[in-house]
């Protein structure tokens, strides 16, 4: 196994052309990356103590081809300018302990579960992408990884820390056998037990090796040795050919491990504890290599007298001395490698390394401990560890030195592949400049995107921006209003192009302005005078500009508002809370609309120059213009040139339903009720009012053949859920046929055949249930007293109501066969279907729908979104209408429900309906289908005052809804909408300012400024954080269950 891996690794490193690197078929087009690179003009640390300035490194196919000052860049090489950069050999961590997903215990496993030397990291263990990424971000290119648990844990593997799994290749399978003194959870439960177990196992390994030898030599007449894979795996260890990496928790265990190794003549490497300095001479005297962690003890807590009493001097001294450990080991002549092992978090590596250097560790020795020493320990110093021709192209490219607290590692190269660690900040503007706005205000600013600072300079005063976020080319920040002569916080965001920042800002009152920041020509390298008062520590920047956020410490100056600044939130609330809410519910008015073209949707057809009068929420007159003596008690609206229609009705809506439109858990959910979950705060109700919609049929989804109960509503925006309900509408229920209900592979029904039987079965059960109740209720008193009552079943109750004609079925359907099927089922059980919904092949069986008496609630022109709608035609509605079906167009969409008038126009375009007949498709027809036509759907005396005023013919694509009234109350008016919108904006700005004040403290104001007027507390539309709409126009429309 190990030899194979060596061969493989060597092959990949030296001779393999890129195309051969991947031997399997490619899933996609064949990638052909550029594998010849040149890093030019860099300072190259060839190995500890040897540096070449202004050097070029040529990398070809993963290997360093040349390093030096006079190296020529070959043609086609991708050039990486290394000016101001230093290139180190890629770092190597010789001991990364990884928790395996599981330890496989095959046949021949050791009896003790902590002994599994046969386990191989090469087969099973690859550090996760994220661990590799974390290691790379520290400059590591190679790691030896081992399982982290057990007494004899298994063999490690040396891998490249590349991002792609196929590049995270194993350099060498001959990594060490990991061991430790693990105990607990059964035998061994003690240290001595662990040592005893190790000892016994090493003896066993010797014994089993011996047995195998005999068996191989003399199989005849011998019994084969027992199967013991664990012991077989230890043969190389006890022969001294595979080193043991012994993880120890302190200096004493280091010595115990060494004693055990000596007892069995093992090749030992210690994975140390960091406490070696406490027995320095003994440990150095062992003459073994030590892999030293850089974890230092926490600072002891001595702040309280009582707790400081418990801190021992040993503890304090250990704390003080731990950073000297590596230096002491080196000085004493030990061979050490450094590791990230034991660090609480790997990002502590450089701060702690810096500590060690500060405590005397020679930088050269430190670099050796991260490159040449671990390379040699792993037996790979012929291919990794230095920047020399012929070695693997494993490099760390650093801005400055690697031995800073937070070195700026730019790239890590692994086998000639660049892994970007931190990008060169794309938006780099370190300059003074001029900010110009279209407000007429011009200011001097100083920007340093690398430090995330923006400072305004007004005379002698410097005003620092807060919350500076830099993301690629974009920058945004908040500044108090002084540079803009405003009180409050001003927010700006812009983007850097062609050397200038262009963007938009918002004043405290929400007013938008545009700005440009142009840098002064000559200030690029001007000393950063202003930076003096910064925190000075651009702290968290190891991942580059991406992690903007925490950068500026000044964001944390959360200051609670002073009491004197406290502003009581406005007392008055709007309903629903948020934008476009009403402070007062609209009230019914007595109103007269004159001079309008009235589309009555009733027997009077279209009345040119007519008028409509509403009193007590009801229509009292509709007809030609009359002579009026006195209209003082009426609100008179002159609608000259405008068109008036009945409020539009949507027979299939899912707007304003909380917590899911489908209860798809069973095939029959007749017991659930949309009426229980009306959400009156859904902003789409308001938006639909703005499109002239006044009533809707809220339906359950179509996931199951027998769905939930519907809810018929009027869009009484501002009201509570109960206010929306049309209580005298006949109850309904959703059914569904076809693809949606048969889609589930594990649930009956699975075919249109099954749908029929499922529905019939439901009605038969309902009939039986009804009969059972009838029998029970028909029993004589004393018989009934002795009989257990039937169980009341809400699901069957709903079906009984259908059988009794008390509940309308609204059935999702597409294909003609299923439409006809349900008609026949309804005929069999003696009820009339309310509507077929969608019914896109209704035109194929229109005569059957008409003679049954069902309505057809269809789409104007939808098709092709699934197989069962490939035959859908936009002429469907008109053709069904022509054959005598009552037809409506529905939306099934919160967006489309805003444009039902132009949907109706499609019945003119496709099928040539008369304009009034076409409009009826979204007014009186759906009202009839929902059995609410006695109240709404047309402009006739006695009906509810539900109407819409349009800017022109409602069938014109240019028409705009100007007013929407329900029961004599005005719910939408286009100018009022603008006021509500403006008020919402003002409230948002007020609240944003309040948030900024609480986050950043009270902004400083220019002295001349008027104090800001508190926002009008009666203003409407205070907004709360709200979920945004999905971005994609594709996300909403074609995927749900229509």
């Amino acid at each position: 196994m190990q030899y194979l891996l060596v061969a493989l690794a060597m092959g990949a490193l030296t001779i393999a052309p890129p195309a051969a690197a991947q031997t399997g078929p490619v899933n996609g087009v064949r990638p052909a990356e550029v594998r010849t690179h040149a890093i030019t003009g860099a300072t190259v640390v060839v190995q500890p103590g040897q540096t070449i300035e202004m050097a070029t490194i040529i990398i070809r196919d993963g290997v360093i081809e040349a390093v030096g000052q006079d190296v020529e860049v070959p043609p086609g090489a991708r050039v990486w300018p290394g000016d101001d950069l230093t290139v180190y050999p890629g770092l190597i961590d010789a001991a990364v302990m990884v928790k395996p997903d599981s330890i496989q215990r095959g046949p021949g496993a050791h009896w003790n579960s902590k002994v599994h030397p046969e386990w191989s990291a090469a087969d099973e263990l690859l550090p996760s992408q994220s661990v590799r990424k974390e290691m790379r971000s520290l400059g590591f290119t190679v790691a030896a990884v081992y399982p982290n648990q057990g007494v004899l844990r298994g063999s490690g593997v040396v891998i490249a820390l590349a991002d792609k799994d196929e590049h995270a290749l194993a350099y060498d399978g001959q990594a060490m056998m990991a061991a430790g003194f693990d105990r607990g959870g059964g035998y061994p439960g003690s240290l001595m037990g662990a040592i005893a177990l190790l000892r016994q196992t090493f003896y066993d390994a010797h014994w089993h090796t011996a047995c195998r030898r005999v068996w191989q030599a003399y199989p005849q007449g011998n019994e084969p040795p027992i199967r013991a894979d664990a012991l077989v795996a230890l043969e190389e260890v006890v022969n001294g050919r595979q080193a043991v990496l012994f993880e120890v928790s302190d200096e004493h265990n280091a010595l115990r491990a060494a004693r055990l190794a000596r007892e069995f003549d093992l090749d030992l490497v210690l994975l140390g504890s960091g406490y070696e300095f406490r027995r320095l001479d003994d440990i150095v005297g062992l003459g073994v290599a030590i892999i030293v962690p850089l974890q230092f003890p926490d600072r002891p807590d001595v702040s309280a007298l009582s707790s400081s009493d418990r801190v021992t001097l040993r503890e304090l001294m250990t704390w003080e001395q731990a950073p000297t450990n590596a230096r002491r080991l080196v000085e004493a002549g030990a061979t050490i490698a450094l590791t990230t092992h034991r660090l609480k978090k790997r990002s502590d590596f450089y701060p702690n390394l810096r500590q060690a250097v500060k405590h005397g560790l020679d930088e050269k020795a430190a670099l050796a401990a991260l490159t040449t020493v671990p390379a040699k320990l792993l037996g790979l110093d012929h291919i990794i560890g230095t920047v020399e021709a012929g070695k693997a192209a494993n490099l760390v490219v650093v801005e400055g030195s690697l031995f800073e607290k937070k070195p700026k590692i730019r790239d890590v190269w692994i086998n000639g592949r660049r892994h970007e660690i931190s990008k060169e900040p794309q938006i780099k503007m370190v300059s003074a400049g001029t900010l110009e706005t279209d407000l007429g205000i011009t200011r001097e600013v100083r920007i340093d995107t690398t430090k995330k600072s923006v400072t305004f300079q007004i005379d002698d005063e410097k005003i620092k921006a807060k919350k500076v976020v830099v993301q690629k080319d974009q920058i945004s920040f908040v500044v108090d209003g002084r540079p803009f002569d405003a009180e409050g916080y001003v927010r700006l965001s812009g983007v850097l192009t062609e050397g200038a920042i262009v963007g938009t800002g918002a004043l405290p009152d929400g007013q938008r302005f545009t700005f440009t920041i142009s840098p002064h020509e000559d200030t690029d390298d001007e000393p950063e005078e202003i930076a003096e008062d910064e925190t000075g520590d651009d702290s968290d920047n190891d991942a580059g500009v991406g992690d903007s956020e925490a950068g500026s410490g000044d964001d944390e100056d959360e200051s609670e508002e002073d009491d004197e600044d406290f502003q009581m939130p406005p007392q008055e609330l709007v309903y629903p809370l948020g934008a476009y809410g009403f402070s007062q519910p609209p009230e019914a008015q007595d109103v007269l609309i004159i001079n309008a073209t009235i589309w009555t949707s009733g027997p009077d057809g279209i009345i040119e120059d007519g008028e409509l009068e509403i009193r007590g929420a009801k229509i009292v007159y509709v007809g030609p213009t009359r002579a009026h003596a006195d209209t003082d008690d009426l609100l008179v609206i002159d609608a000259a040139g405008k068109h008036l229609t009945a409020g539009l009705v949507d027979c299939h809506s899912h707007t304003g339903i909380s917590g899911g439109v489908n209860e798809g858990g069973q095939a029959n959910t007749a017991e659930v009720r949309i009426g229980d979950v009306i959400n009156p705060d859904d902003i789409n109700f308001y938006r639909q009012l703005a499109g002239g919609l006044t009533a809707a049929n809220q339906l359950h989804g179509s996931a199951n053949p027998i769905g939930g109960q519907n809810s018929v509503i009027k869009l009484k925006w501002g009201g509570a859920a109960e206010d929306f309900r049309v209580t005298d509408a006949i109850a309904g229920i959703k059914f569904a046929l076809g693809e949606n209900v048969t889609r589930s592979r594990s649930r009956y029904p699975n075919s249109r055949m099954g749908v029929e039987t499922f529905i019939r079965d439901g009605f038969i059960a309902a009939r039986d249930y009804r009969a059972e109740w009838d029998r029970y209720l028909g029993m004589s008193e004393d018989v009934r007293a002795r009989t257990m009552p039937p169980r009341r079943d809400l699901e069957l109750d709903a079906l009984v109501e259908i059988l009794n004609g008390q509940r309308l079925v609204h059935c999702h359907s597409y294909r003609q066969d299923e439409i006809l099927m349900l008609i026949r089922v309804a005929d069999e059980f003696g009820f009339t279907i309310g509507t077929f919904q969608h019914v896109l092949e209704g035109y194929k069986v229109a005569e059957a729908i008409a003679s049954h008496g069902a309505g057809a609630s269809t789409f104007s022109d939808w098709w092709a979104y699934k197989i069962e709608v490939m035959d859908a035609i936009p002429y469907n509605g008109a053709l069904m209408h022509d054959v005598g079906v009552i037809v409506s167009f529905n939306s099934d969409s919160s967006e489309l429900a805003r444009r039902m008038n132009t949907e109706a126009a499609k019945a003119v375009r496709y099928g040539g309906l008369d304009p009034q007949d076409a409009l009826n498709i979204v007014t009186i027809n759906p009202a009839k289908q929902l059995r609410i036509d006695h109240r709404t759907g047309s402009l006739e005396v006695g009906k509810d005052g539900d109407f819409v005023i349009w800017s022109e013919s409602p069938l014109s694509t240019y028409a705009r809804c100007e007013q929407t009234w329900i029961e004599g109350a005005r719910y939408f008016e286009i100018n009022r909408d603008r006021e509500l919108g403006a008020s919402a904006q003002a409230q948002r700005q007020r609240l944003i300012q309040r948030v900024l004040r609480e986050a950043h403290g009270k902004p400083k104001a220019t002295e001349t400024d008027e104090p800001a007027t508190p926002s009008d507390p009666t203003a409407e539309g205070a907004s709360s954080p709200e979920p945004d709409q999905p971005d994609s126009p594709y996300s909403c429309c074609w995927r749900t269950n229509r």
Partner: protein
Amino acid sequence: MSGHWTWSTITVAVAILAAGRPAAAQSQQIPAPPQDHPVIIHSATIHTVSGDPIEDDGYVVFDKGVITDVGRGRPPQLAGAEVIDAHGLHIYPGFIAADTTLGLVETQSVQVTVDTTELGRVTPEVRAAVAVNPDSSLIPVARSNGILTGLVFPRGGLVAGRCSTIRLDGWTWEQMAIDAEAGLVVNWPRTEPSRGFSFRRQRSETEQRKQIAESLQEIERLFDDAVAYLQARESDPTQATDLRYEAMRSAISGEKPVFVRASSVGQIESAIAWATRRDLRIVIVGGQEADKAIPLILKHDVPVIIAGLHRLPRHRYEPYDSAFTLPAKLHTAGVRFAIASGTSPAHERNLNHNAATAVAFGLPRSEALRAVTLSAAEILGLGDTHGSIEVGKAATLIITQGDPLQITTDTLVAFIDGRQIDLGNRQKAMHQKYREKYRQLGLLDDS
């Protein structure tokens, strides 16, 4: 409802339809042969789009697929010409679907009929045109509402592929393709941390910003790699071929635009800054918040394809008509834009209704018309050949009874490159078939 037509115009229209070549072909439209004789249409109102309309007595002449004369009054006499009296009718350039997947999608929910998306995040090597199915039943449906040209987009991933301009008639995709490699398609990553309610655990703003930075960097890396590759190909004969980078060549050289799908202001700004830095020509597709990035869009003269108006506002507090008023805002500011349908290809036929909605909410009608014709052509790289009725342009035009932005207006006749197109479609055929059913049942009397 303004265009009340007379019986006489309808007669003309019907006469024209009867003259149209395969009038009987309802379900299988037959592509028209190349124009082999001049056509003169006269006595019509000609909406040139490039200039003022020629009211009532305009004529247009075209031959060999190209418009040769446009004028007023008496048309020229040409030997062998077909002469069409279009009295009372209107002539418009054919409409352009500037953001469509027509031809790539047949039935949205059936994955095997959807050829919009290739496997992988970065697939610049694929081209839309080669997967356009000339016999798609969706194409004649779009065509019968006057949509005669389209820009077909690959979708999905970060770099989806290359989009193609096509004419909506032809025996093969090759005949349909105008430019199979019209541009590179980049789907810009999200640039703002999401917030609010989510089913998944909401990650912190810092975490999200890290990921956003990573996505943006992915694009940088890709283009850096492509540039390095292209340079290596120039000078190193052993450099192996990579189709992905080869496919980016024309966009990187600036020969072809990059169509960047970007909706939010952050995406738009970030994309423009990127393109400027790399000296790429870009077109913003989507553009939902383009009105909030106007200074930058103007500064770099970036055209915008508005992907549909019929959508809900992005935020709860936004005006209900924020999508409807977007074109008017862009127009007022002087931004170059086209209007696309923003919907599935089956509903591409409603493209014009989007333009009309913009008119209802403040855009001058002439601009709305331009947004689905000439402006679209210019942005798609077809400005010299399509989008208006001018001498030298392709004879790709329609005859209508009235304003084609009105839903109620039918398209009577269409020419693509001077070839009269069969405006029948599967839906019209099914309609006639079932009218016959009800005639047989005695329920309809309209024979």
